[in-house]
């Protein structure tokens, strides 16, 4: 009777029938193992490794045991490779603050990164554009290769190896969840079985294992998701001539947004989201044709119509009349000369959001909790935001001597992040849909909308502030 009074949220074993073998609250009555980890982070990608690092360096976690499980091998570099990697991320100032809080940002600065000061976003179907920049010439964000971030995190993890254990080539195959409160002889901890048969116990499991999260599936957490009919093509591009290259460019084509992100004075990274067929075509075509396609995607005005052009001119003159300050003229991105061999890759895109970020003794962070379109450059930043928030809550809980897996602080993390992430996901999805069409009414709506937003500085500042958390 006592068990049935458990909180309805648990949806325990009797009602979980039919969901699959991993999705039950199996009682664990095995022998008690010696080590109970305080936190196990499942998934050693950018967000998982950052989580383990942040906890390892947290002042209130000095006598706690943390474990990071990574399915892949340890990536070690003797020295920085000369060729740039084609997977890069736009790191917001908030994420940079997190990375510097445990010393990883210093390693990144010693390797390589590129700060950008301005961002121009414009439409292929009209003259409308929006230019983001900070008045005080602060950096808006940083373009860093994913491998560089990973290397920095690995170095910091090695430095704190007395508190954080990292198991490479270890994948969890099953999880056993505890009952809501202690019943006779059932372990209150989460039990994880690894591929090699060994088991671990932990007071809190953090799932950071990507958008196909095994942890999330094993817990039976519902995930709202759909696939966009788009794949993203990435490549490393060489510019025709060296420039200051501190501007990020993004143009919304009817097939999807194309973005050029600065890597160095002569190199930029391409992220082009387009239909699956076009993406496959782009990856397959020869180099010259590829370069021409990119240049015309940024420069060509083929999609403009007279109607939209005149409508946008009208609004522009109204804006100019009301606010006769600087009128940002549309600038063109630098032209591309060639592309790095073998740097063209494509990957599919989709949206995902977990209905719950937390359960007793479980928290989801990063892509396991939310998956977003790259058009706003927010994916990994949302993940780092999750890390910040969860570390803050766990640190306070540890300083209060609380059981780390207790829902009271985990729900605080969930509330914080769901508010932020849901808004951003919805906005990104809306933008993606709005800009996926060349139908005149929607083009008119978004043209005027973009021009109006560009004219209202406080609104732009709000957008920048929200995105740089």
């Amino acid at each position, binding site marked *: 009777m006592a068990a049935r009074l458990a*909180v*309805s949220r648990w949806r325990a074993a009797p009602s979980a029938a039919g969901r699959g073998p991993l999705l039950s609250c199996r009682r664990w009555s095995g022998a008690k193992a010696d080590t109970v980890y305080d936190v196990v982070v499942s998934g050693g990608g950018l967000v998982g490794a950052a989580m383990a690092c942040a906890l390892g360096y947290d002042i*209130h976690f*000095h*006598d706690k045991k943390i474990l990071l499980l990574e399915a892949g091998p340890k990536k070690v570099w003797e020295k920085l490779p000369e060729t740039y990697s084609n997977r890069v991320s736009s790191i917001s100032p908030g994420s940079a603050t997190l990375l510097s809080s445990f010393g990883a940002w210093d390693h990144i600065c010693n390797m390589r990164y590129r700060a950008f000061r301005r961002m121009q976003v414009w439409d292929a179907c009209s003259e409308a554009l929006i230019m983001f920049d900070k008045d005080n010439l602060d950096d808006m964000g940083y373009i860093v290769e994913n491998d560089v971030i990973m290397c920095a995190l690995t170095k910091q993890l090695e430095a704190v190896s007395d508190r954080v254990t990292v198991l490479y080539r270890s994948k969890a195959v099953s999880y056993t969840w505890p009952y809501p409160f*202690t019943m006779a002889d059932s372990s209150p*901890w989460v039990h994880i079985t690894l591929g090699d048969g060994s088991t671990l116990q932990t007071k809190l499991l953090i799932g950071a294992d990507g958008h196909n999260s095994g942890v999330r599936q094993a817990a039976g957490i519902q995930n709202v998701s759909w696939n966009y009919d788009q794949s993203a093509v990435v490549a490393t591009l060489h510019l025709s001539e060296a420039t200051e290259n501190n501007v990020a460019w993004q143009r919304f084509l009817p097939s999807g947004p194309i973005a050029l992100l600065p890597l160095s004075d002569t190199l930029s990274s391409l992220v082009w989201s387009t239909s699956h067929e076009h993406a496959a075509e782009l990856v397959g075509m020869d180099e010259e044709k590829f370069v021409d396609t990119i240049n015309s995607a940024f420069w060509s005005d083929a999609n403009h119509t007279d109607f939209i052009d005149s409508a946008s001119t009208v609004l522009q003159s109204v804006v100019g009349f009301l606010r006769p300050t600087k009128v940002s003229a549309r600038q063109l991105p630098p032209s591309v000369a060639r592309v790095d061999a073998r740097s063209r890759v494509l990957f599919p895109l989709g949206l995902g959001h977990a209905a719950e970020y937390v359960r007793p003794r479980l928290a989801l962070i990063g892509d396991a909790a939310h998956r977003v379109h790259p058009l706003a450059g927010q994916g990994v930043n949302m993940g780092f935001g999750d890390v910040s928030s969860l570390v803050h809550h766990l640190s306070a809980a540890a300083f209060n*001597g609380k059981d780390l897996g207790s829902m009271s602080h985990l729900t605080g993390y969930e509330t914080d992040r769901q508010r932020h992430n849901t808004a951003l996901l919805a906005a990104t999805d809306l933008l993606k849909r709005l800009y996926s069409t060349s139908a005149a009414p929607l083009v008119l709506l978004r043209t005027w909308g973009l021009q109006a937003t560009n004219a209202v500085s406080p609104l732009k500042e709000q957008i920048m502030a929200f995105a740089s958390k």
Partner: protein
Amino acid sequence: MWGGRKLSSFGNRFLGVLRSRCWSTQAEGARLTSSAGECQNQVSWTPQTKPWVFSEYRIMWFKSCRMTFAFYLLPRLYSTSQTTVDNSEIKTFLALAHRWWDEQGVYAPLHSMNDLRVPFIRDNLLKTVAHHQSGKPLSGMKILDVGCGGGLLSEPLGRLGASVIGIDPVDENIKIAQHHKSFDPVLDKRIEYRACSLEEIVEETAETCDAVVASEVVEHVIDLETFIQCCCQVLKPGGSLFITTINKTQLSYALGIVFSEQIAGIVPKGTHTWEKFVSPEKLESILESNGLSVQTVAGMLYNPLSGYWHWSENTSLNYAAHAVKSTGQEHPVPAEFVFKGETEELRDKDSTNPGVQEELKK
């Protein structure tokens, strides 16, 4: 989000018990996921019209309600004199012993009171040391938790590095506490539980403890003077005594006795005797007369809707007190004496006047 979640678990059980009473079936409050939507708006409590009969249904009912004063049900009738523990009371709560560690159950208010009591104890103890180990701020300290129950407060203190001895007169509570800590190897080493009363261990633990914690205990003690004396004997010179309890005011009578016991029937009649509630003034005078100088008195307030406690200026319901045993040397001026809140008895006294302290000492 959490607000909605807690309301829905509260609402679920509320609805579940209503149904069980209507249909006279075995109440199974929790499995009402489908009704979560409807009951979110039905949080308001409705008074029962039938007189309370001590029965299965009533246990179900009060288990299902996260009301303000659920913590009044604590199964401790603590005795420091020769009178034994009241067996009939203990039987009532033995059925609930296994519910200690259900964070959303009857003891939820006690679990959430940890958010106030643990920082209160931790911060006041840290003031007495020059520097502490990060991660284990209380390491090296010995703490005695009197009336520890299921170990709700002993475990957080153990996690912060202290060596804790938890004592409780109820065997079942100690068994539950032992069982719960046995799964955590670190806590297993740091905490020791014993089923005994305070005076039974006074001799062997005399002057060895850095702190004694008596949380939600003194309102059940028969002889408060002897209890405080024993606490003082156990403390090292300069050690701290932490007490949380309920004030003896008209408000605590109205809400704690009349509302909870007679109207709502949440607390079985006779569990609490208003006469045994202790006002801060009386507590302070006993503490001072036993060589314990009172450092802080602060009010605590529970919000039943959110399930969280808050510090408050008002001590007329619950309050926490911190006192320090004198080191034997003459201290010219006792430390900051913070007295908050008004009661009927003290309406004529100026609450912020340091002269109050002199008056109490007389």
